[in-house]
């Protein structure tokens, strides 16, 4: 299965990745090759196979409902590119 430029553009948009126009052909080729590799999956019949999401057939463990975290805003916000008044700032969001 091969992908074309518009697939790359669409996927890059969904994944929020800016791709240089000049690099698009390279991505088209790489992704097409990878998908060709992946196509081999089609060789095997999986009609009655139960999908496996996890290596271990275990169930989710549940946490006791307790507040265990304390305020660490200053520590965490020291990592942030832009904060003000305790808020993370992003370019204006229009609704």
């Amino acid at each position, binding site marked *: 299965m091969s992908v074309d430029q518009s697939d790359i553009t669409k996927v890059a*948009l*969904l994944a*929020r990745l800016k791709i240089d126009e000049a690099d698009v052909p390279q991505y088209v080729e790489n992704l097409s090759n990878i998908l060709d590799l992946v196509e081999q999956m089609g060789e095997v019949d999986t009609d009655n196979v139960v999908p496996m*999401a*996890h290596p*271990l057939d*275990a*169930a*989710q*463990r*549940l*946490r*006791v*409902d*307790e*507040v*265990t*975290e304390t*305020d*660490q*805003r200053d520590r*965490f*916000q020291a*990592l942030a590119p*832009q904060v*003000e*008044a*305790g*808020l*993370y*700032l*992003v*370019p*204006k*969001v*229009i*609704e």
Partner: protein
Amino acid sequence: MEWEIVIGLEIHTQLATKSKIFSGASTAYGAAPNTQACAVDLGLPGVLPVLNREAVRMAAKFGLAVGARVSPRSVFARKNYFYPDLPKGYQISQFELPVVEGGQLEIQVEGEAARVIGITRAHLEEDAGKSLHEDFHGSTGVDLNRAGTPLLEIVSEPDMRSAKEAVAYMKKIHSLVQYLEICDGNMQEGSFRCDANVSIRPKGQEALGTRSELKNLNSFRFVERAINFEVERQIDVIEGGGKVVQETRLYDSDKDETRSMRSKEEAFDYRYFPDPDLLPLELDEAYIEAVRKTLPELPDEKKARFISEFGLAEYEAGVLTASRELADYFEVAARIAGDDAKRTANWVMGDLLGALNKEGKEIGESPVSAELLGGMLQRINDNTISGKIAKQVFECMWNGEGDADTVIEQKGLKQVTDSGAIEKIIDEIIANNPQQLEQYRAGKDKLFGFFVGQVMKETEGKANPAQVNALLKQKLA
């Protein structure tokens, strides 16, 4: 053309857990921005979600309360999209296998027959943070305190046929989640939120019309108004030869209209898939039965009991069981009052709710507790005071002047039940009003009331009305 309205609701209830659904951060409302957002809530690298036991229990409780199937196995999935209030770039939700499937709820619009509304599913998910759009030099501020708060999203079938039904359904769910103590129901703080899917179709047509999804319906009033506006808009579009487009519309309560949310240049593609950081949630039969045992008496059951046990009318029982707090209030007051639960019902629905309404107070904030009201009603029932005097006692209690007995004592409101004293007063009144006596005896029965009034006036309303009636009848004959 006659149109049929088709409405389905998606209700988001914040579950009343202490900590978040996947982290140990507090869910308390109103903290300073980002002080209750821990590394997991912030989506920092390397941290992992662990599911809150209590959120699961609450979801199961809801499922059982609406007669739904609590799934033995449900799966958390990632819903992928980028938005500043969604720190991980995906929301952990349930998609293919929700924890609750297939329930129902009976609703009633006043003056109409009861209807059953199907509940498709209810699933657990995490709430997003909040974007604050006030201006920070042209930027938006993001507060992630709310991120990770547990939500139960309750999805109805498209079974409602009017805005009023939608409101009735929403109110019923609102009451139910509070009965179950799984949500505080506070709509102002966003604990209980609603989106509505609205479409219209020609009456008699089976196929559904194209729907729009209305967001931001944060009060019962807005739900009704937004739906009504939207229905009119859709009718106008279709009758004007146009087509309804499937879209998300925001309700603007200031302008009382819905408007299309500018969808970005992309079509949404959420790329749901099972979250590999979480394992399937498995709930066995024993667990589900244990949860079932913790279910409180539900509104419909309570209503039936109020009718049979207290002899209330359908309507009264309905009003009094609309919220668990009100029902509890009534029941406590009625038990203290002893006899005549109908009187208690009238007082609660009339004087009490009226007074609360006037001051914009909730039942939980009432200055007159159920115990106080019950105590006062007991004094009516044992003839210590009359119903009329009780109004005065109630007002005093409302103003914090103590319980009924204290007020009655201090203000000397005790009813006069000494028949000798009443007889004396009646004799005086008859003597002073010969003309009225003559007319009454000549057949003008209406004047009986005049004599009652005179006695009451003379006794400042403290004479026992039944006694007055009996004695007057005797003397006037």
